[in-house]
């Protein structure tokens, strides 16, 4: 069986030109690479090691499940690489490596291969892995470190090198050593939510802030997304709907109570909204295929993101918003099916 026929089971609209899974996936990897490089520049070798571990663990898990299920190995289609990279990019750079590896195992194993591999999973695998880590290790996954710390290319953050299944070394001493002015260990979203300190959107646009490894570079994420959209490998509707709806809703909140809710630009450039909207919400497996469905799906996720951030107990809501969107996408697809030619409403037919 050739790979092209593996993908051939798809609802309309069909792609015009024959494109293989590998080619699209490889292009997504290209689009992700600049973000990875920038993440390593900001957070140093700890981020590099984390990305390598998540990707390697994702590939190893995929291979293991293929072998256990007596299936042809599917690691060549790059989808496991994307899952590994995306997972690494959504994690805090100081996360112990073994947790990253475990997250990748959960992402690929229970998140994808158990359903039958690529194309059959309900949820975005990288986010399944991240949700697992968030629930299992709530402290480690909210321990953020400053960007552009001293000695970041020569020294690991001490928590990175924790023994497997063991607690991470405390990073307080290290934080004192590399202290960037006024850093408190919180991301702009946490600062906003718990201390009502709003970070300047421009500095967030440049990405020199605390956060998950790959979520701090809106410009590169935007460029990567645009590249894929221009090459016709990604739907523009989903990210546009998601970003637009969150911006509009955030602005409405902001206007109702400026002291309490931050503005639209802050919402747009903070947290993982950009990365989530461009690279995770658009996962073709988890999103609807009808164009009306894509709008509904995007708006739903954008609204949920803002609702969780502003009204919920968590500082960041992109992950749960996308997972909920994934869960609802079959339903959305069902109610937005285009009418077949000649089909009429029942009332008319009577």
């Amino acid at each position, binding site marked *: 069986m050739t790979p092209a026929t593996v993908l051939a089971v798809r609802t309309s609209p069909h792609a015009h030109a024959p494109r293989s899974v590998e080619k699209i996936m490889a292009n997504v990897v290209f689009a992700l690479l600049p973000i990875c490089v920038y993440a390593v520049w900001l957070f140093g070798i700890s981020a590099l090691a984390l990305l390598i571990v998540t990707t390697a663990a994702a590939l190893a898990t995929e291979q293991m499940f293929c072998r256990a299920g007596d299936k042809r190995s599917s690691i060549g289609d790059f989808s496991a690489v994307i899952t590994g990279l995306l997972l690494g990019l959504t994690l805090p750079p100081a996360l112990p490596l073994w947790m990253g590896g475990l997250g990748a195992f959960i992402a690929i194993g229970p998140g994808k291969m158990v359903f039958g591999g690529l194309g059959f999973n309900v949820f975005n695998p990288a986010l399944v892995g991240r949700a697992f880590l968030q629930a*299992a290790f709530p402290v480690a996954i909210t321990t953020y470190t400053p960007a552009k710390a001293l000695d970041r290319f020569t020294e690991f953050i001490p928590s990175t090198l924790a023994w497997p299944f*063991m*607690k*991470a070394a405390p990073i307080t001493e290290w934080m004192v050593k590399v202290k960037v002015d006024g850093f408190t260990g919180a991301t702009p979203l946490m600062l906003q939510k718990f201390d009502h300190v709003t970070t300047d959107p421009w500095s967030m646009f440049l990405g020199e802030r605390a956060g998950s490894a790959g979520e701090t570079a809106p410009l590169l994420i935007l460029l990567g997304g645009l590249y894929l959209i221009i090459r016709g490998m990604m739907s523009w509707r989903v990210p546009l709907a998601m970003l637009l709806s969150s911006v509009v809703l955030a602005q409405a909140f902001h206007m109702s109570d400026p002291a309490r809710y931050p503005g639209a630009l802050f919402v747009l450039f903070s947290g993982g909204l950009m990365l989530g909207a461009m690279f995770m919400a658009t996962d073709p497996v988890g999103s609807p295929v009808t164009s009306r469905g894509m709008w509904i799906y995007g708006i739903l996720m954008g609204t949920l993101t803002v609702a969780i951030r502003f009204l919920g107990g968590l500082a960041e809501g992109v992950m749960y918003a996308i997972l909920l969107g994934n869960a609802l996408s079959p339903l959305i697809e069902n109610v937005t099916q285009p009418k077949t030619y000649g089909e009429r409403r029942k009332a008319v037919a009577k």
Partner: protein
Amino acid sequence: MTAEKQAVTITADTHPFLNGLWKQNPVFVMVLGMCPTLAITNSVRNAISMGLATTFVMVVSYGMISAIRKLIPKQVRIASFIAIIACGVTVVDFLVKAISIPVYQALGAYIPLIVSNCLTLERAEAYAGKQPVIKSMLDGLGMGLGFALALTCLGMVREVLGAGTFLGYPVLGSHFEPWVLFLLPPGGFISLAMWLLFFAWRKERAAKLAAAEATQ
């Protein structure tokens, strides 16, 4: 109906106690009583307490049900069964409170819920309502202890991974990073899935071995 008949024929040729404890284990084989199984197994102590409380309810109420089984008209049997089980549950509720308040606080709303545990009614309907007193009580004891065993298996996985302790004693050293997830509700589902996977795998392997032997 056919499944029920089957269950009765299986129970007829095995010992009622061993049947519940292992062969037809309420959680791992029949997958009954999922509410307490998932909800209160986040520590071994809770799991054992819940298992024992359920066992007590089952033994006492099945004894009573079986004793009056010939008097109960068919039309009101479910109502009578539930009344008797609910009585047993209320008694247990008082007893647990009298024995230990911390255990009572940990089990919380789940003791009253024993009455709605489908396992208790299922065995009353399928077994105690038809069999003599001693056999019914043995069945209740076996099923109850089988339930307790399964709950303890789950509680073990969840407490060891989620807190690094067993019955409150640290077993994985002070440097172990606990997987908080296992103390939360999703941990219950994940550990139950792991146990069911393990038993399914064992069963499949046994079937394969038997098939291989048969062909030789």
